[in-house]
């Protein structure tokens, strides 16, 4: 088992944002978390990645407890994510965006950095080559020197995924990757997610509003409403679940 969430509960003051969230995630799975706005989907990502510390419960990555660790440690352990509203390092170049995500993989000490001596040159060249290769794989090599805020929206989304991949994750958390995309772009994105999943041997959790995407690629779905899990199962089961229809699909989400 790759990731296990047990009775994860989180309060913001008196407000229960997530209650009793359970998840068993096997290596290689692609699952979706859906639910209406404010259901606590992004909060779950924030709990897994250590942005918030869960009030109760445990989150384990291959038996390693994550609750209480700092975000960068969790990333080092192999969990990477993207953000609902793109959070690139806007003023920096596309290449630097990806190189920063290599931070945990670079091994030289501050003295090497102050004087550019020792293993510095070798390590730097390695990360440049690695980052460029990754950009090339994701068809972003041509814009490597571009300031990232100047990229078109679709490319910014892709760069965010590239940046997440540069941390060498085993588990990738995608927070509404299709937000603001038209049906055509969503089709491309579906293929793209399937492709990176195989190419980088990833396990993926997807938060999404776009039913087309979720139904198309997720093997299993979890539906949240007001922090509680109201249903889970295969996509077609979810589609016909009366509880879900009432909470979410019934309100005309499609």
């Amino acid at each position, binding site marked *: 088992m790759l990731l296990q969430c047990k009775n994860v509960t989180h309060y913001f003051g008196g407000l229960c944002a997530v209650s009793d969230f359970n998840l068993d995630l096997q290596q290689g799975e692609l699952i979706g978390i859906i639910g209406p706005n404010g259901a606590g989907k992004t909060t779950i990502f924030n709990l897994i990645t250590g942005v918030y510390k869960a009030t109760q419960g445990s989150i384990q990555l291959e038996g390693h407890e994550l609750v209480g660790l700092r975000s960068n440690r969790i990333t080092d352990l192999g969990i990477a994510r993207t953000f609902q509203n793109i*959070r690139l390092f806007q003023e920096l170049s596309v290449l630097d965006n990806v190189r920063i995500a290599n931070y945990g993989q670079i091994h030289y000490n501050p003295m090497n950095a102050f004087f550019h001596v020792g293993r510095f040159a070798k390590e*730097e060249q390695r990360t440049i080559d690695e980052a460029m290769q990754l950009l090339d794989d994701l068809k972003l090599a041509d814009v*490597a020197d571009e300031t990232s805020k100047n990229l078109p929206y679709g490319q910014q989304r892709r760069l965010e995924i590239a940046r997440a991949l540069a941390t060498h994750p085993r588990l990738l958390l995608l927070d509404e990757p299709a937000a603001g995309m038209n049906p055509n772009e969503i089709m491309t994105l579906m293929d793209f997610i399937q492709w990176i999943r195989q190419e980088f041997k990833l396990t993926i959790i997807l938060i999404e509003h776009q039913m087309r995407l979720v139904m198309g690629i997720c093997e299993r779905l979890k539906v949240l409403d007001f922090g509680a899990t109201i249903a889970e199962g295969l996509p077609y089961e979810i589609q016909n679940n009366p509880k879900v229809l009432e909470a979410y699909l019934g309100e005309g989400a499609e």
Partner: protein
Amino acid sequence: METPMTSKTNRFQGPRASWEALMAKRWLLPVIIALGFILSLALHLGSFNAYYQLTLIYICINVILTVSLNLVNGYMGEFSVGHAGFMAVGAYTGALLSTRVWPVELNPFLFPVTIIIAGLVTALFGLIVAVPSFKTRGDYLAIVTLAFLFIVKSAIENIELIGGPRGIPGIYKLSNLPWSYVWMVIALWVTRNFVYSNYGRGVLSIREDEIASDLMSVRTRQVKLLAFVLSAFFAGVAGALFAHALQFISPRVFDIVKSTDILIMVYLGGIGSIAGSILGATVFTVLLEVLREILGPFQTWRYVLMPLVLIFLMIYRPRGIMGLREFRWFIPARDLFASQRWRSKAEAKKKEAADAAAV
């Protein structure tokens, strides 16, 4: 735009092309640095006009101060107003070493050691400010640094052993032009090296988006610690140089006005830029000397004019002249040509594979 001229440049393509051709000659930078040193040595040995020499020394010291504050304020995007406090620590450490600790006759030889110890002691104080920066940022961290400045100043004022409010007079004049120049080059070089390293990119990512940078495996605490310590180290170096140039220091020298001056130099030259730091410090120092001439008996107006400059800068050019841009010679070739070199390498590989397939 960033492509350097690889083929032969046409001489008649106009200023743009000649600029590109000049930029391609990257070997010129070390030559210029060496020439600068020879010039500083010549001016020193040739007993060039003492006033001009002192102004040049101040330019060097101010460049060190500016580039070190730029690391925190420009590259990391925090707002530290306590830089004069670090400078004071360095100045007092240096002055005490040379007036009280070292034997008089060894003083000139121990001067580099004095400077380094002053820097290291100040770096320790950098840790004190770095730790609160883990939890606070923005305006609140600015207040922490302001408090640090006041604490340092009033601590010095109240310790009679180091002269209290009267300060330390009669410091030997050990900061000459060549030494100041050498330390300036070291400060610029080390800061530039740091910025173009893994840690430096971490510093930039903290400015851009701290939460995202934490989630992209950047150890933000380590990065902040390093940035503050390095920044404090060079502020201390500048302070020690300053003490041995002015030959007299007192707590009053290191007040909020001094911090404001350094801030103006940073925001005038440009945040997040080595070239901007040099430019800002030089323009400001020269401007100050010119003002001294012009203002005559109205010297105190300087305290109105300079903050006004800061206000106008913040409104109309918040990033300064070179804001977030860098002079190409200062960028390591590995970074500047990273994508280009990778592309040509990839093409060569492809060609090789094609050739192998053809055979």
